[in-house]
């Protein structure tokens, strides 16, 4: 039970902090979910990348610093404490990159990772389809073999960031008549500006185009953009879901910074007694999430795979995040109905963002089913 940082980790923290102090933009950037904001966030990624701060956990060969999990957690703590901008490259960095490390070829890694790390190529995910939300295995979009590659057709939806991104990755059905629905899927990457792709932005609750529908009509993808073996896409996608992604999807640093801001708001409001308990729960929750993550990281570093306990993590942070923002809005009183980024500390926009948490990356209902079956050993039962 050791919660101390090594001198090297402390030095790393100091270096990150001083770089961030010098570089983090003073005001907040325009919302990531606008064209202007997207461009500003891309530029910020380039600035991070120039000093090798954009993808610290990657190997140096691809622009990273080869940081282990603990150092990544330290970086995230400093990053969010500094009030630095949201990360436009998150989809690629946290979902596609781990897949490439595990299942990609050396050629793919060398070609794809460096521009991803610099924010030059921003990736969108293309998992869900209109009839395949929580029930992801029932995908219908097709990949049909053609000379030197594949032709993609069908419809994807809830593609985060796709309104402004460059490329996308997802699963496609390459063998139509398999006995089970998760067989015969292939993991492919494609260009969002390729012929045959139509991107229709979808506005989230506040109207900002945070995701898009993708209509694909015989979109050509060369063989070099298949990850893993054709037909093995489900296995490729799931094996990555079981790595440290459960820890890196939302970093504790992010919530520690939000909790600090909440406590500061509460102080500003004269330590309002009526919200004291909820503010305290906000502060405690961030600490619990941090310590839970350190424990999971410690186990991971000793070689234990992260299994279904990622589901505990997912339910916790997504519900915590909403409660935190609700408390802040209540502290703002009637002014709390304002949703602008630039007013009242951006709590309104953060609240709208938090509402998606229990829905995406596996709904919390699915996560609770996983906890019941795989962590508690309860009978499967119909959902």
């Amino acid at each position, binding site marked *: 039970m050791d919660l101390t940082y090594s001198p090297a980790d402390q030095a790393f923290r100091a270096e990150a902090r001083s770089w961030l102090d010098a570089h983090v933009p003073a005001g907040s950037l325009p919302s990531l979910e606008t064209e202007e904001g997207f461009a500003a966030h891309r530029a910020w990624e380039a600035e991070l990348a120039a000093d090798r701060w954009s993808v610290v956990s990657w190997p140096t060969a691809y622009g990273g610093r080869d940081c282990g999990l603990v150092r990544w957690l330290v970086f995230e703590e400093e990053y969010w404490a500094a009030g630095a901008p949201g990360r436009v490259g998150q989809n690629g960095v946290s979902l596609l990159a781990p897949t490439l490390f595990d299942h990609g070829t050396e050629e793919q890694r060398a070609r794809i990772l460096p521009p991803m790390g610099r924010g030059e190529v921003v990736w969108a995910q293309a998992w869900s389809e209109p009839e395949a939300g929580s029930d992801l295995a029932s995908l219908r979009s097709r990949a049909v073999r053609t000379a030197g590659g594949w032709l993609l057709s069908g419809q994807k939806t*809830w593609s985060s960031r796709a309104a402004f991104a460059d490329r996308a990755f997802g699963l496609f059905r390459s063998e139509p008549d398999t006995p089970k629905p998760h067989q015969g899927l292939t993991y492919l990457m494609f260009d969002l500006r390729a012929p045959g792709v139509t991107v229709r932005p979808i*506005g*989230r609750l506040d109207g900002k185009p945070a995701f898009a529908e993708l209509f694909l009509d015989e979109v050509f993808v060369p063989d070099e953009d298949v990850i893993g073996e054709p037909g093995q896409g489900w296995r490729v996608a799931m094996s990555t879901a079981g790595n440290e992604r459960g820890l890196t999807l939302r970093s504790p640093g992010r919530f520690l910074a939000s909790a600090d801001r909440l406590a500061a708001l509460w102080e500003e409001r004269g330590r*309002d007694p009526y919200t004291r308990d909820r503010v305290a729960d906000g502060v405690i929750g961030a600490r619990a999430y941090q310590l839970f993550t350190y424990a999971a990281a410690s186990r991971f570093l000793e070689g234990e795979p992260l299994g279904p306990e990622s589901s505990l993590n997912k339910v916790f942070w997504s519900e915590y995040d909403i409660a935190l923002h609700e408390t802040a809005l209540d502290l703002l009183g*009637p002014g*709390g*109905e304002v949703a602008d980024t630039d007013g009242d500390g951006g709590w309104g926009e953060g609240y709208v963002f938090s509402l998606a948490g229990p*829905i995406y990356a596996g709904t919390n*209902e699915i996560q609770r089913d996983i906890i019941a079956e795989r962590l508690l050993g309860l009978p499967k039962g119909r959902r």
Partner: protein
Amino acid sequence: MRFLLDDEQTAFARSLDGLLTAADTPAVVRSWGAGDHGAGRALWSRIAELGVFALAVPEAYEGVGARPVELAVAFVELGRHAVPGPVVETVAAAALLSEPGFSHLAKRFLPGVASGETVVTVALPGGGPYVLDGDVADVELRMTGGGRGGGFGGEEGQLWGASGAREGSPDVRRSLDPARRLCVPRSGGELLAAGPRVGAGVADAVRWARLATAAQALGVGLALLDRTVAYVKQRRQFGVPVGSFQAVRHRLADAKIALEFARPLVFGAAVSMEPADLAAAKVVACEAAYATARTALQLHGAIGYTAEYDLSLWLGRARALRCVWGSPGECRGVVLGGGGDDGAGVG
């Protein structure tokens, strides 16, 4: 003792529901939120023709006298259909201007309110820091110099009025409800009244505003529940309707319980018009509607999180109504005889 709506009240609800169903209200809400008020003003007139605003206007000024139960009936329907605009604020203004001694103001403004010609918005203690739809309202009333909170003490104060177009483009801020256009209150204008009557009038305005907000929130919650029940019956995942999963069924049952126990508080408050009852109705109806909104969003999943799907019209409304005309904490304070002294309640 007969705590039920009578046939006339039920018929009134039904005709309002029929009007709003036929009017394609969701499209009206969307254009209103985009700053195009034509369809919304037309709908406003038709609502007024059914007598909705007259329910808060004395007979002397072309109203039908104070009819809070009928007003609650109407506002449940306005909430169910997510009708946009300063409907609560117009009712609050009618209550304020009905204050004895304001007959000159009543004569000047109330016939227009009752007929639907005059859309009013307000900046009063007990409301919020913004004027709702200040860019489209014909009249903007503002109280200065009053106390904070619900203002039930009848404080001294000045009442200001402004009308006509705002100079320059109004400073409209985005609400969590895209149909609510929040403006910074105007300064100056015409001094309409001063003295303790202003405070007394504002206290009345807050009472009516809380009733109308509570009823509207109840309607919002009912609509969210109805739409979600319909959705989970037809949406299939894992080969079965989503609505056959027990977790889904129980969550909707909880929403139903919350709304059905908010309903009698709303109508009970309309009967008594007592501040504590109104505050209780306001907090419970708004909390029930908001909890139902959270449930509705979660059970719809991603589609519910989009602005283009109509559910969004009610989701944002539920959140916004919870904030204004008395925060949950402020209302609970009033219930316990605290007079709404909640620091967090006034932004």
